[in-house]
């Protein structure tokens, strides 16, 4: 084999090898796409003053659905596992420096938190959340169904943001059926939780639930809790 042929074989093979590895990368990247796209907060027309500063307003509505079928009914895309999940998307986009109001419709039962700290409301305006019309600053640790815990990497390129909202459980009767609750304005059997917080500058954050519902797994934090995209997600402040 001539030198040129050998060199060509070497170079082409190397490029082929790089292409193979690149293909693996592209495949993994495609598999990492948000399963249900992004949920973008709606900007409101009016503004609000908090502590002397004026903020634009925005709002976003999500739900926590006990299974995949209910999630799909409420706008999510079908997912691989039949786990409890946030919906209609687990990637929320919020505007920066904005007074954001989140409404969560929650439909699940609950038991006990692993860490009672997450029964407290942290990081919202006034330190409270509104459950079915009533303002509270905490939920009993054994009456929580899920939490919306928003946190991020402390880094110089973004402002810190930490919000913890415990979501009250829906009670079930002996036949494992949900007991309808008073939910102003809807026929839903769940609760409506409303809270507000102020976003900082641009940044990437995550949220995950701190109520362990991965039955059968250690500390009940396996299954849905540890599979990305069900009880966990991303929050982009843009």
């Amino acid at each position: 084999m001539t030198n040129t042929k050998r060199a060509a074989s070497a170079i082409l093979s190397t490029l082929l090898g790089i292409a193979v590895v690149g293909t693996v990368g592209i495949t993994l990247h495609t598999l990492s796409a948000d399963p249900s796209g992004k949920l973008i907060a709606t900007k409101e027309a009016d503004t609000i003053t908090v502590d002397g500063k004026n903020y634009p307003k925005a709002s976003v509505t999500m739900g926590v659905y006990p299974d995949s079928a209910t999630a799909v009914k409420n706008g999510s895309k079908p997912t691989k596992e039949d786990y409890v999940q946030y919906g209609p998307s687990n990637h929320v986009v919020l505007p920066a420096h904005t007074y954001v109001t989140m409404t969560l419709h929650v439909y699940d039962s609950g038991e006990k938190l692993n860490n009672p700290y997450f029964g407290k409301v942290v990081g919202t305006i006034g330190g409270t959340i509104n459950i079915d019309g009533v303002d509270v600053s905490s939920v009993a640790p054994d009456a929580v169904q899920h939490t919306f815990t928003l946190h991020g990497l402390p880094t110089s390129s973004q402002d810190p943001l930490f919000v913890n909202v415990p979501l009250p459980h829906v009670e079930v009767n002996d036949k494992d059926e949900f007991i309808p609750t008073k939910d102003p304005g809807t026929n839903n059997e769940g609760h409506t939780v409303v809270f507000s917080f102020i976003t900082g500058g641009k940044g990437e954050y995550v949220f995950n639930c701190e109520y362990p519902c991965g039955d059968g797994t250690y500390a009940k934090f396996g299954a849905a809790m540890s599979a990305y995209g069900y009880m966990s997600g991303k929050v982009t402040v843009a």
Partner: protein
Amino acid sequence: MSDHNDVHLEPTPGERFSKFLKRGDIRETLAWATFYTAVFVVLGAYFYPKWMPTVMSTDMKAIERLMVVFTFISAPVCGFVMSIFTQTLRHRHKGDTPPPDGPAIRNNRLATSVFAGVSSLLCLTAIVYGLIELNSSAEAATKDAPNALVVEVTGNQWVWSFNYPSLGVESNVLNLPIDRPVIFQITSADVNHSFWPVQLGVKADANHLATTLAQTTPIKLGTIDVKCAELCGLYHAYMETSGEVMTVSDFNNWVTAQGGHSA
């Protein structure tokens, strides 16, 4: 007078040593060794303090000092190894045919003993220094215990939370008053985590149904990064929070704002 009557004296160890030092290859080795030792010393003494974070506690100070001291201890070994490395490369055989046979040196008891002895001594120095350091931080811990601020640290997947029992405060940020010893009582609500307030130079794993301890005294105002140093699942990378070492009055104000009572 004939030469046969001259007594041939054995050279003294001193003479043999100075003859040894005058050999060309030995001088080259020593020169390179000195050069490389100096390079390693400078690299370690300059770069470790540069890269490592702000010293904000007594323990972190000891750690940065230790990194520099261990560089001094290991530099001669590095110098020696790199010296032979360089020298033999400089005298490499060029060409495609094999080199001629070199001298058949199968052993040199003196060289082996000196090498083993010196490396053992350096190793011993490192051990002793480390043991002294370990002991003194343990002693400091016992000494400071009475007036220390106790912070209960709970790690769970994937958020740190802190409880100050004597102050009635629960928080997700780790604020501390300056110049007051703090004892961290660390536990986990689920799997293994590792509590790491980086600038404070302490670390302890968080285990379920067990309490591990870490203790130090913050000595500088500023921001602390609290990280998790044990892979704990999905959001291990995001299991971080921050905190601040504050003046006592700022700290008390913060405690009150959280609804607690200052001690």
